[in-house]
């Protein structure tokens, strides 16, 4: 679960990491009010969950309250990479002397937490990583010991941080590490961490991603989820424990298991079709869950044909068949569909489908070919 900038900064502040003065607002009037309170220059920042806000014009400096109001109005009317802007962060203006990068994440290959730091923070950090990887300092952390003081000092030296700033940098790094551990973050990054012309250190921008699997022990963080930034069908799917991703094609897919679901999409493309979605019903799904899944696919107007591929292990094919028949009894107009059931209780499942006059397939390849044919015939 990715957090907005303002939410990330609230966490920074909670962990003792200094942030600019500012507030999140949802109207131009409020923005002006905050600017009045702050006085002086402010920056107005769109709160959307995509990268490249600055380059899209979603971050603007303003010198007067009038300017703030104008910028705020314009940004609230914008859509950035397809996402509407509902909230703005109005922060005090900062005189930047130097930009540092500091982040903590999991390194999949090494299977350890890693602290990343660079003396060249800012918008182009990915470019820095690509062109001059030696400027990104990687420090692996023993997960049973945590980040040690000496490691933070080593990082400070490696990024050429003047000694005057070591003490405050140690506090910030310790705070970021604690945030990463205590909030079950998969990413906690400050970019840039700014040294101001007034010799203060401030987290100007940041990004925190929380491990979805850990939300059960972070009720407060789970409440931060911004549903307005997500596809409504994907939100609906999550309610039922389904994993759904909307795609651009016409063939709706319902599969058990993420790997098999991806392989099914691949095979549809290989046969010349385009999948309308990824949908994994998970292991051991009951009839109700299958009905909910099929309902989501049926409500997608782009879907011209449906492919259902179930390899029963924990999942029982007769349960799936019951769910399919249940969902179909609810709708009048239904796109043509191909169903393939293999494994646990497949015989019983196929009988249920035969009774309901539904098309079945033997192999995965045959199923994909039929679905592509049906989708082409439907247009």
């Amino acid at each position, binding site marked *: 679960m990715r957090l907005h900038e303002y939410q990330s900064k609230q966490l920074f502040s909670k962990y003792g990491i200094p942030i600019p003065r500012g507030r999140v607002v949802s109207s131009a009037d409020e923005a002006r009010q905050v600017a009045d309170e702050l006085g002086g220059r402010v920056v107005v920042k769109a709160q959307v969950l995509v990268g490249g806000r600055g380059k899209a014009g979603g971050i603007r400096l303003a010198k007067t309250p009038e300017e703030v109001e104008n910028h705020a109005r314009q940004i609230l009317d914008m859509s950035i990479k397809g996402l509407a802007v509902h909230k703005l962060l109005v922060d005090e203006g900062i005189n930047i002397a130097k930009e540092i990068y500091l982040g903590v994440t999991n390194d*999949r*290959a090494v299977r350890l937490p890693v602290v990343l730091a660079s003396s060249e923070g800012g918008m182009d950090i990915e470019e820095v990583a690509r062109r001059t990887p030696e400027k990104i300092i990687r420090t692996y952390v023993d997960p049973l010991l945590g980040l040690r003081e000496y490691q933070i000092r080593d990082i400070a030296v490696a990024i050429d941080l003047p000694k005057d700033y070591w003490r405050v940098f140690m506090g910030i790094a310790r705070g970021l590490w604690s945030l990463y551990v205590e909030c079950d973050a998969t990413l906690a990054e400050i970019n840039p961490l700014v040294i101001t012309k007034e010799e203060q250190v401030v987290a100007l921008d940041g990004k925190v991603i929380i*491990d979805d699997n*850990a939300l059960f022990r972070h009720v407060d963080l789970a409440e931060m989820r911004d549903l307005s930034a997500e596809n409504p069908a994907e939100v609906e799917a999550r309610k039922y424990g389904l994993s759904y991703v909307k795609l651009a094609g016409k063939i709706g897919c319902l599969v058990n*298991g993420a*790997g098999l679901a991806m392989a099914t999409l691949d095979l549809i493309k290989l046969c010349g079709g385009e999948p309308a979605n990824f949908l994994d019903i998970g292991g051991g799904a009951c009839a109700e869950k299958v009905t909910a899944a099929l309902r989501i696919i049926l409500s997608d107007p782009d879907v011209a044909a449906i492919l259902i591929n179930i*390899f029963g*292990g924990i999942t029982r094919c007769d349960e799936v068949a019951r769910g399919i028949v249940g969902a179909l009894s609810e709708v009048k107009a239904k796109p043509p569909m191909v169903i393939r059931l293999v494994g646990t209780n497949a015989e019983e499942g196929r009988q249920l489908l035969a009774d309901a006059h539904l098309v079945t397939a033997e192999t995965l390849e045959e199923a994909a070919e039929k679905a592509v044919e049906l989708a082409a015939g439907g247009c």
Partner: protein
Amino acid sequence: MSILVNQKTRLLVQGITGREGLFHAEQMILAKTNVVAGVTPGRGGEWVLDGKVPVFDSVKMAAEVTGANTSIVFVPARFAPDAIYEAADAGIPLIVCITEGIPVQDIIRVRSYLDRKGIRLIGPNSPGIITPGEAKVGIIPANIAQPGNIGVISRSGTLTYEVLYSLKKAGLGTSTCVGIGGDEIVGSDFIDMLRLFEADPHTEKIILIGEIGGDDEERAATFIAKSVTKPVVAFIAGQTAPPGKRMGHAGAIIEGRSGSASDKISALQAAGVRIAEHPEAVLHLL
């Protein structure tokens, strides 16, 4: 012959009185596995599955009494890390974790602890291990595989079943099939399993089933080029997945260019691995 599990496996089931644990304990017994004990704290002294399997309050007690040498974890995600630590501290050398949805930092700590003790973890979010005809430690349906000389390693569950089933239909068999788990960070990786299959005299060919995300397949390719003499065939799921989209498995997300199917396929091809276009096509390359 086989890797990891065989007739000598003495299996302990953690979470044996739960719905999944009990159902699969029975399935594992039907697949000839020597299930010697179950553990559910608070239920010690009971017997399950028609009095065939004794239940203990702790792994330590179960291991002492029954000589269990392998444990399988069916415990819910929030309690699973503790169950794994318990098995490790009781000295069980092989732990298989079926549970999905365990927080990644928990697994990083678990793995780090187990590495220090030299204990092998398979999973989490794994369908387990099957050596057809000898033992099954997990949830892979036993009737879709038969004994043979092909070793199978996979990050996926049902996709693996698909491959095993198509092998069986073609009259081919499996030495051992290991599901290493679909999560971002797991206990054992492709390289660990490739090393075991390379050393197993009864495995003649190896199938590797990967998917988008991470660089496990790329690192496996490097290892294959250097240290695997047996022929390897692979299938990579997610070849058409759009970048930046999360496809269910915690592991299956492409961020930018790294982790894409095409990168994995070219790395594997450069190591002499033949790539199947779809899961049922794997057997034509063997």
